[in-house]
């Protein structure tokens, strides 16, 4: 059945009920929060922290005397480190893409359909974060005695959980059909 062009969006947005709007807002807020968490995890320097060292995927802060110095990472297996870098950057990219695709699909998806493309992108982001955090846990700092995981590492795992929930939500959610 051919509809009159793309004026669906205006009529349908007006037709949404309040609860649906609220749920929609909630999902978008959660998605944006997840993107922010992913970005902080990738960029902020706190994957592995000790008293005098704070390190992440890109460089390392060392305290010499009482001054912090930024140095290159050392003693890391180079290939694993670069894989972690690549997958965490990819997770950010896919999460941001998923947000844009979700907004686009809100307007263009036919009624009663699932947001599969968004869900798939979000699932790939989830997979990438999982790969990044797992490789980091397994290969790097597995033999260090002192120190612990910093907040960026924790945020990476939290965003894994969030992306997974969001992916399931998108794959299950159907566009409201009047």
């Amino acid at each position, binding site marked *: *059945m*051919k509809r009159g062009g793309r004026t669906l969006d205006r009529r349908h947005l007006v037709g949404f009920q309040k609860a649906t709007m609220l749920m929609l807002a909630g999902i978008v807020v959660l998605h944006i929060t997840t993107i922010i968490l992913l970005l902080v995890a990738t960029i902020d320097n706190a994957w592995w922290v000790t008293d005098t060292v704070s390190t992440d995927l890109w460089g390392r802060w060392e305290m010499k005397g009482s001054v912090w110095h930024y140095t290159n990472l050392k003693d890391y297996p*180079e*290939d694993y480190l*670069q*894989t972690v*870098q*690549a*997958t965490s*950057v*990819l997770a950010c*990219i896919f999460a941001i893409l998923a947000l844009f*695709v979700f907004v*686009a*699909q809100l307007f*263009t*998806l*036919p009624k*009663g*359909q699932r*947001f*599969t*493309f968004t869900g798939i992108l979000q699932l790939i982001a989830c997979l990438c974060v999982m790969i990044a955090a797992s490789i980091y846990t397994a290969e790097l700092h597995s033999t260090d005695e002192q120190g612990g995981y910093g907040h960026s590492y924790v945020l990476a795992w939290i965003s894994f959980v969030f992306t997974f929930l969001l992916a399931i939500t998108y794959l299950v959610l159907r566009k409201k059909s009047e």
Partner: protein
Amino acid sequence: MLTFLALASVVLLGIVPEQSQAIVIYTGWERHALVGSDIRLSCSFFSWRWTSEDVTFSWTYRPDGSRDSISIFHYTGGAAYVDNKGPFRDRLEFVGNPSRRDGSILIKNLEFSDNGTFTCDAKNPPDIVGRPSSVRLLVFEKVPIQAGVITGAIIGVVLGLLVLIVVIYYLMRFLVARRVFSLSVSKHGKKKKEGSQQRQGPVPPADPSKIKV
């Protein structure tokens, strides 16, 4: 006309002020090599003058951690003189072409003691004012992976695959809509499935095919 141009360029070259007539020497910045392999250290220069017959190239070597440099190669008067008593005896070869302003040397069978800085100095009389340029040689047992190569490769491949899959998906949909392909699914089922897939880009003009029969 041509002779006029030639004369003009010669005159212009002659009246270019002295300060701009410095010779500029180019070598690499850093070279990585495996122990036991050969490496070619390139050196070339830029000069406002024509390449003279008395052009000279010389290479000196300063080991890592030392403050003295020794001379290992000199080319002058059309003949190349390579190191025959120093650390590179029998391992150095001249592979450059002085008339093309190339003064590169080849070091064979690298050892760990070859780590250091190689400096190339070239002179193109009367253009002799210039700074020698240095290249640092690093000899490895195993060439390390450069920072970011694997990262970039993984990101590039994944994003490329994503773009490819999306393009192929839309291409298939477009081709099916245009009836170039005919899939053996019932007309009703195929059209209903077609019409209800998510749409994001411009809808192909062949919309009449979506009308249910």
